[in-house]
């Protein structure tokens, strides 16, 4: 399927569009590094992230503690790695939940329409009327603190955006001839929605999802920063930032390092999604100039000739 999405503007051999632009590559490398370091945190960590060594409380960077220790004497470097797990797993949970709820709802609204559409869209309007974090506060206040509850709360808050997007895309696709053709071939509405309409919307949805992933990291960290997310002693970037801020003058690394990691992951995801959009969007192909293209083709052909 990817071949068809991309292939409509680029053929395999003489590809116009370059996927690996510098910004795309850099953002990808940063994000993959963060994912790998967090996923294999036990391998890369030097200490148990939750072990208190009170004698080294607020210690600065040293050979044994690369980034120093927090107020409870826990190794900052190891906690940043483990905190990445919390952030990434949490963000995946948020986006996963919004996919599971948002895409089916959006397809039903867009394709079936009618009363279901009206009801679901009005419900979305209600949710969208509240600021994201405020609504998440409401959930936390009602159901209590904890990473699971924050993830579910943010997941639900993220649903309306995805529902709206999917709905608008589905409406566009619904009016194309191939959908009427599918109806006249006797396919069920469910099949048409999932096998025909959804794949044709997926490139835009994919971009939105990578963007959402970045925002989810940010929002989860915000909740934890305010003390509404994770419960101690779980390592989390937002919580670490919140706690470290109290000792900014004693050990600035405690707040700046988690903050920097949050920024890096969100920015790299944003750039990544922007590059993805440019690559998948048919109307925004960045074509090389004719001379550039011709010389590139020449270069491609030369090695083949010498080989033959």
């Amino acid at each position, binding site marked *: *399927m990817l*071949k*068809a*999405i991309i*292939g*409509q503007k680029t053929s395999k051999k003489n590809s116009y569009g370059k996927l690996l632009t510098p910004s795309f590559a850099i953002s990808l490398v940063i994000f993959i590094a963060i994912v790998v370091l967090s996923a294999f945190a036990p391998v890369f960590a030097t200490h148990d992230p939750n072990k208190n060594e009170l004698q080294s409380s607020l210690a600065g960077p040293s050979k044994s503690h690369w980034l120093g220790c927090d107020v409870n004497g826990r190794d900052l470097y190891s906690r940043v790695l483990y905190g990445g797990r919390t952030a990434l797993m949490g963000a995946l949970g948020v986006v996963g939940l919004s996919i599971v709820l948002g895409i089916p709802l959006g397809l039903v609204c867009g394709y079936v329409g009618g009363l279901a559409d009206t009801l679901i869209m009005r419900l979305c309007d209600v949710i969208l009327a509240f600021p994201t974090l405020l609504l998440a506060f409401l959930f936390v206040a009602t159901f209590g603190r904890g990473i699971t509850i924050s993830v579910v709360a943010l997941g639900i808050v993220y649903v309306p955006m995805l529902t709206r997007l999917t709905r608008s895309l589905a409406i566009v696709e619904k009016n*194309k*001839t*191939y959908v*009427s*053709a*599918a*109806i*006249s*071939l*006797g*396919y*069920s509405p469910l*099949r048409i929605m999932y*096998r*025909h309409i959804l*794949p*044709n919307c997926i490139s835009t949805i994919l971009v939105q999802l990578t963007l959402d992933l970045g925002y989810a990291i940010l929002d989860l960290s915000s909740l934890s920063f305010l003390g509404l997310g994770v419960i101690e002693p779980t390592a989390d970037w937002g919580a670490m930032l919140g706690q470290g801020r109290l000792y900014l003058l004693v050990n600035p690394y405690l707040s700046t390092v988690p903050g920097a990691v949050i920024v890096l992951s969100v920015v790299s995801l944003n750039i990544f999604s922007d590059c993805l959009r440019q690559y998948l969007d048919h109307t925004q192909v960045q074509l090389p100039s004719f001379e550039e293209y011709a010389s590139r083709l020449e270069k491609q052909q030369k090695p083949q000739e010498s080989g033959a």
Partner: protein
Amino acid sequence: MIDMENLLEINGLTVELMTERGIVYALSGVDLNVAHGQIHGVVGESGCGKSMTAKSIMRLHNPKRSRMGGTILFEGEDIAAMEIKEVERLRGKDISMIFQDPAMSLNPLMSVGNQIAEMARVHLKSSKAEARQIALGMLEKVGLSPAINRYRQYPFELSGGMQQRVMIAIAIACSPKLLIADEPTTALDATIQAQILELIQSLSDEMGMSVLFITHNFGIVAEICSAVSVMYQGRVVETGYTRSVLDNPAHPYTAALIASIPTMALESQKRLGSIPGRPDTLYENLSYCPFCARCPQAFGQCRNERPGYQYLEDGHRAACFGIGG
């Protein structure tokens, strides 16, 4: 018509559509019969109701915005009166349709093989492997070979003619009894047109499949259709065997249409015939002959009464007061 064994019998079909400017009487009494194994042409100018008739057979109108009357008997069962669930069972399996623009009618993100296989999966409940075999067979059948390579290709990798072949393969994958071809060659150039026509004809012969062939081209009708119905303003004005209609057009509209076919003959240096005026809008349900304003032979009765069918020899009939009068 003549054959009592009709696969499809449309009697007095009316379709009214709701629009912002009022009710459009899109079809006002269509009578049309398609015999088993017959290729039946439907001819007429734009907006005369050809595609509307096809859509009605498939029940593709929005039931909330339209009203249907009359009967559409398919193998003796009235499609017009069916529950939509029952119609869905007919669609694709017993009645299939191919459209004017193949590039728009194929799912752009599914390999063509999978699109054919999907028909078998849905309607014949075949396994993945069986469906694949059926799809490969169909690709060969419509002349796309080597089928193995074509199977994996996407619509954008094929030419218009090949795309239409794929559409046909999808439509006939479940051996439908009736194929509705809605101007299947209009978007194709002349040489490809001929190939597609030949393909449809040979498939019809081979599978005993009836075809309702919608076109505005009398040349195509003469080539592949054994019977033809001429439509004007939402009505069938003349119907009969192709030879008899082409040689002895009874309705003035048919005669005028035939006169406006360009010929290659060098001696005919005269101007191409055309029909003066243009069709009325369909915002009222006319109680007179819709063609009378453009008809050279129109007389008093034509402007006051709606003509019924006058029967000629061999099932040939036309709705005109001028016949035999």
